[in-house]
């Protein structure tokens, strides 16, 4: 590996596992393996299991890198560990977190995790944990990104990630499936996932005690964790019981069967089949906007777009058809994002929906507030589209107009913003029940703000109320 002057930067979220750490270096992603696990991991790598799981689309690709001692010395862990070996992974285009995923996305990630565990166990390997943060969407599909979680199976060992799987996949999914509760806000407030006491308090007893999953994985499991009798010194010194491989595999398989059939209480599969037809209206305004987006994408050819308030992804789709690489749709409406995921992402369209309240985007979270990155820390797009959204932020959410426009301009060098004037019926509706506290919300001020930092390349006023589309580039 060629040496470069800059020191590798350890990913701020990579610190818990002392066996290895993820580093970014010269635009590449490396995993440094520490002496503690060097030999065991080398044996796992040489067995070819990682390559086989990667070929099945279950685990991220991993390649050993030739690195001399001088290079290895640069990859030092947070506890002072020196790297013994380096491996390289392809870069995940956009890190996302379970509290940003819809029901269908979290379910897909849970199923992919169980598929990986089952495939690994059948070859004599297990995963040391089951954190949902190790699942990332690549080309629309969830894959596991932490190869160091893979360990050799030892006869009689239990599933060490069972608790984590339940808290980070099963319980949030059950909140929505059985209680109709959207889990995203709770999940964001609790980085380790939904707690058993909270889930037991919320989930309907009728549902809980009428299924094997409710009884075993939620009730009995929850009771075993919080049981007063378990706290005695006698039980805490008790030796872990041996679990047969058959039972280990049965837990994984039964959970997989259960999750595969699980439906959101809010929406059914058939809902999505009819959703597209219900919403596929076509009018002049929509066609004009689609055409403007296509022209922009053809000219700029952005590799990655952030589609702010992108709803079901219609404009992202138009941009991709015209030459954009892929898109991240950020929207607070879970129904639209579910429709987008089920009708496009799942079918291979490179659009990733992420649940995001735009006036309160994901913050930096976790240890030292850098374990999970906030939305803007992950800004990596070269194009942004913000159609019919700024009036919701400025008038609907009382955000300062200047700050909203500057925030959008900060996201990417190129983009399109739609200005919706006060005389538009949608804005009039927003202002109907409240005082107009927005004297600066004018087309003139909008133009000033955009042109102070970007060159307006094209613009189009497209209805009688004065809706304006502006495409801009860097000066």
């Amino acid at each position: 590996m060629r040496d470069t002057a800059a020191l590798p930067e350890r990913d701020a979220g990579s610190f818990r596992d002392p066996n290895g750490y993820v580093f970014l270096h010269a635009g590449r992603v490396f995993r440094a393996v520490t002496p503690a696990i060097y030999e065991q991991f080398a044996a796992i790598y040489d067995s070819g299991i990682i390559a086989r799981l990667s070929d099945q689309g279950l685990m991220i690709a991993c390649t050993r890198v030739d690195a001399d001692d001088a290079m290895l010395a640069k990859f030092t862990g947070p506890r002072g560990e020196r790297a013994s070996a380096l491996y390289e992974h392809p870069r995940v285009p956009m890190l996302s977190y379970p509290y940003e995923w819809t029901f269908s996305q979290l379910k897909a990630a849970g199923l992919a995790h169980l598929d990986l565990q089952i495939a690994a166990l059948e070859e004599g390997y297990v995963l040391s944990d089951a954190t949902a943060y190790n699942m990332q969407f690549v080309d629309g599909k969830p894959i596991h990104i932490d190869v160091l979680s893979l360990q050799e199976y030892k006869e009689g060992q239990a599933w060490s990630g069972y608790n984590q799987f339940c808290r980070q996949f099963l319980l949030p999914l059950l909140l929505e499936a059985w209680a109709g509760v959207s889990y995203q806000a709770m999940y964001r407030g609790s980085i380790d996932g939904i707690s058993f006491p909270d889930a037991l308090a919320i989930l309907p007893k009728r549902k809980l005690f009428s299924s094997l999953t409710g009884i075993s994985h939620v009730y009995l499991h929850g009771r075993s964790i919080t049981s007063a009798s378990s706290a005695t010194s006698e039980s805490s010194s008790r030796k872990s019981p041996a679990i047969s491989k058959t039972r280990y595999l049965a837990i994984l398989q039964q959970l997989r069967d259960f999750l595969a059939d699980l439906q959101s209480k809010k929406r059914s599969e058939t809902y999505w089949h009819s959703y597209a037809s219900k919403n596929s209206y076509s009018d002049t305004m929509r066609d004009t906007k689609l055409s403007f987006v296509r022209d922009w994408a053809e000219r700029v050819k952005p590799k990655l777009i952030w589609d702010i308030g992108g709803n079901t992804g219609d404009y992202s789709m138009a941009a991709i058809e015209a030459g954009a690489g892929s898109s991240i749709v950020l929207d607070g409406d879970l129904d639209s994002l579910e429709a987008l995921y089920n009708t496009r992402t799942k079918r291979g369209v490179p659009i990733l929906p992420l649940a995001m309240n735009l006036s309160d985007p994901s913050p930096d979270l976790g240890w030292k507030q850098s374990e999970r990155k906030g939305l803007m820390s992950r800004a990596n797009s070269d194009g942004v589209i913000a159609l019919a959204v700024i009036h919701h932020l400025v008038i609907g959410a009382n955000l300062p107009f200047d700050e909203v426009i500057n925030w959008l301009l900060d996201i990417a060098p190129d983009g399109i913003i739609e200005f919706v004037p006060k005389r538009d019926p949608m804005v009039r509706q927003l202002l109907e029940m409240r005082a107009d506290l927005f004297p600066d919300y004018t087309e003139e001020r909008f133009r000033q703000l955009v042109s102070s930092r970007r060159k307006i390349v094209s613009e189009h006023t497209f209805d009688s109320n004065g809706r304006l589309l502006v495409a801009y580039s860097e000066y």
Partner: protein
Amino acid sequence: MKQLAIPSLCGAILFASSATPALAYVDPVTGSIIIQTLVGGLAAAAVALRSVREKITAPFRSKKKDDIENA
């Protein structure tokens, strides 16, 4: 395995006979590991039952599919 009469009954009995709300907190992993002998047994029974059910219903399901395809 959505509905199971026997586990439902077990659950009802467990629920009815459960002691006062748990107050103590122990390492979550410990409880999760210990419970796996029981949960694993229940899961193994459920997977076996599903497999038997699928074997029994398979001929009817494929016949139904053929009927639809030939219709």
